[in-house]
């Protein structure tokens, strides 16, 4: 089963004269980070199961430029953006789905001004659509009675007002959705945004991911659900830091759905 991932690339499809319905933008974390790769694969399994016509850019994909822009390097951001837009436009891409809220935000909001206009959706929105249109069916048996709390990624929630798609999916799992003290528009950051992922934090009395993990632990979840590879890393580290990895799992929404489908 595991070896049967079907991941067509744009260059292959284009050579065969085909155009997929949607481009899956994998992102750097989804491509290279061991933990995030699992999310990528879980999402692809669902796409395969639902027979979604999709493709990836593969080696033609490059960083969207988000961390460079948030670090203040507008030059590098725009170089990346313009290069990516050239590739996307050459393949006449119309719709993009991504499992990374940072890629989602950048392509959706900051690429149009530089000539890149696409319909961009986050994978939780895409999965919700697949579910509602009956292309996948989720049986919640596995998660019945489990307490799941959703950690809002800043660049999905506050930045783009997407709060309900991930929560709707959790409810479909028959799980008990529990909310942390700070949630939705007042959700607390995991500490990774604004290029913080790639540097040591400034001097303080606590790490942000620990603060957020403590908020999560307060609601005694079985699972902390995430919708961002960076949040996932931060929360996983936080749970380990609190010695709770035996009782609390940190999972992406795509992984929850894939697991519910026994994929």
């Amino acid at each position, binding site marked *: 089963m595991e070896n049967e991932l079907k991941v067509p690339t744009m260059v292959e499809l284009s050579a065969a004269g085909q155009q997929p319905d949607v481009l899956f933008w994998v992102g750097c974390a989804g491509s290279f980070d061991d933990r995030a790769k699992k999310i990528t694969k879980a999402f692809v399994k669902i796409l395969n199961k639902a027979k979604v016509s999709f493709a990836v850019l593969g080696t033609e994909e490059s960083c969207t430029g988000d961390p460079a822009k948030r670090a*203040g390097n507008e*030059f590098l951001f725009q170089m990346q953006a313009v290069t990516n837009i050239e590739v996307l436009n050459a393949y006449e891409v119309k719709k993009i789905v991504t499992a990374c809220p940072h890629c989602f935000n950048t392509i959706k909001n900051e690429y149009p001004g530089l000539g890149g206009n696409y319909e961009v959706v986050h994978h939780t929105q895409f999965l919700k659509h697949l579910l509602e249109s009956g292309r996948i069916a989720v049986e919640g048996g596995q998660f019945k009675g489990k307490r799941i709390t959703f950690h809002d990624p800043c660049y999905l929630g506050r930045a783009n007002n997407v709060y309900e798609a991930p929560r709707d999916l959790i409810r479909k799992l028959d799980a008990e959705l529990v909310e942390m003290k700070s949630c939705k528009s007042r959700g607390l*950051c995991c500490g990774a945004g604004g290029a913080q992922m790639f540097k040591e934090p400034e001097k303080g009395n606590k790490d942000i991911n620990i603060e957020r993990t403590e908020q999560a632990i307060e609601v005694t979840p079985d699972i902390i659900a995430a919708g961002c590879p960076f949040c996932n890393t931060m929360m996983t580290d936080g749970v380990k830091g609190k010695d709770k990895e035996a009782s609390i799992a940190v999972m992406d929404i795509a992984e929850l759905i894939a697991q519910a489908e026994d994929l």
Partner: protein
Amino acid sequence: MDYIPNILFAILLVTGIAFFTKNVKKLIRNIKLGKSVDTSDHTSQRWKNMIAIALGQSKMVVRPIAGFLHIIVYVGFIIINIEVLEIILDGLLGTHRLFAFLGGFYSFLIGSFEILALLVIVAVFLFWVRRNIIKLKRFLNPEMAGWPKKDGNLILYIEFVLMVLFLTMNAADYQLQQMDVAHYTKAGAFPVSQFIAPLFQDMSVSSIIILERAAWWLHIVGILLFLNYLYYSKHLHILLAFPNTYFGKVRPKGQFDNLDSVTKEVKLMMDPSADPFAAPDENAPLPEKFGASDVMDLKWTQLLNAYTCTECGRCTSECPANITGKKLSPRKIMMDTRDRLEEVGKNMDANKGVFVPDGKQLLGDYITNEELWACTTCNACVEACPISIDPLSIIMDMRQYLVMEQSAAPSDLNNMMGNIENNGAPWPFNQMDRNNWSKES
């Protein structure tokens, strides 16, 4: 001789308004030191924002207790101003309770003002308790030490005194009406001050008249002084909240501006027909400075933000960096921007309207690199602000200056950016391995 009070009143009124106008002009001049920005888009959305957020106080009630108390003071402020109109006309014309001809409606108005005045006194007292007895954390951050703390309390004292004067004036008036004193025609309803009036019943008519006049004069003079206090205080928000919510961000919070000056350079670099060895055009204007190191590099809307900030600290109390003990406080970013802008304005006042470089700037002298690098760009501060201030945009502009003008990024970030430049990912992985995950089991 009969006209002396009228003339005195007119002089006070004109002086008070003239001095205020002078400061408003200074305010506008200072805000215009910022860079221009196109705000002609989304007109209907902007009006809606102003009506909902400033007029409707929609974001204040996110925190119900402070929100509720604030609405009382806000409604009191707006409605009691109708009474100020009457007071001004009475003062100029030498009349007493000019609007009394409205009859029952007048009684309704005065009665409402009295109830609101009492509610304002209660709300102001509770605000004072929150700041001074309960000592809410957000009022005690380091940036609140000194003047900001005094300013916050002073505003509460002034509002308290104004309301007490208003009720004293009415109570004395009511007592005189009961005693059928000429000039004090029976008008209005006094649901609150009728309980204060008995305190005066043993006083002589002339004493009560002096008391009524004193309270009347002190009340209106107090209002004129308060009006002129605004410019020197965080309390400017009562006026600037309206334009600020109109000019606030109307795009998704995650959308940061793309710098046009950079786009030009990038397009040139990507253009295969551009001659890299071409001599630069001698008439070309000096290249624009990237990012912001001082207030003049910011947009005027950001400077308006700074003057609008009322230092409530909701931004700072939601900031993940601040919560975990880092130096960054979004409120301090706004206060520093305002304080530096004021310093620049004073410099211009002293130098015939021209800014003479003073060897200082916003970056370094007010805001440190450490604060700027602690931000996660999570937008919690922007979401928390009840009047659409965007501290994040200032942080980003200053980061751009640090990185593009000074190459002063933390070394970890330089590594990250080097990786993106070399291999298209923030980590040192080979671009050609990007799709390997699809072949792994």
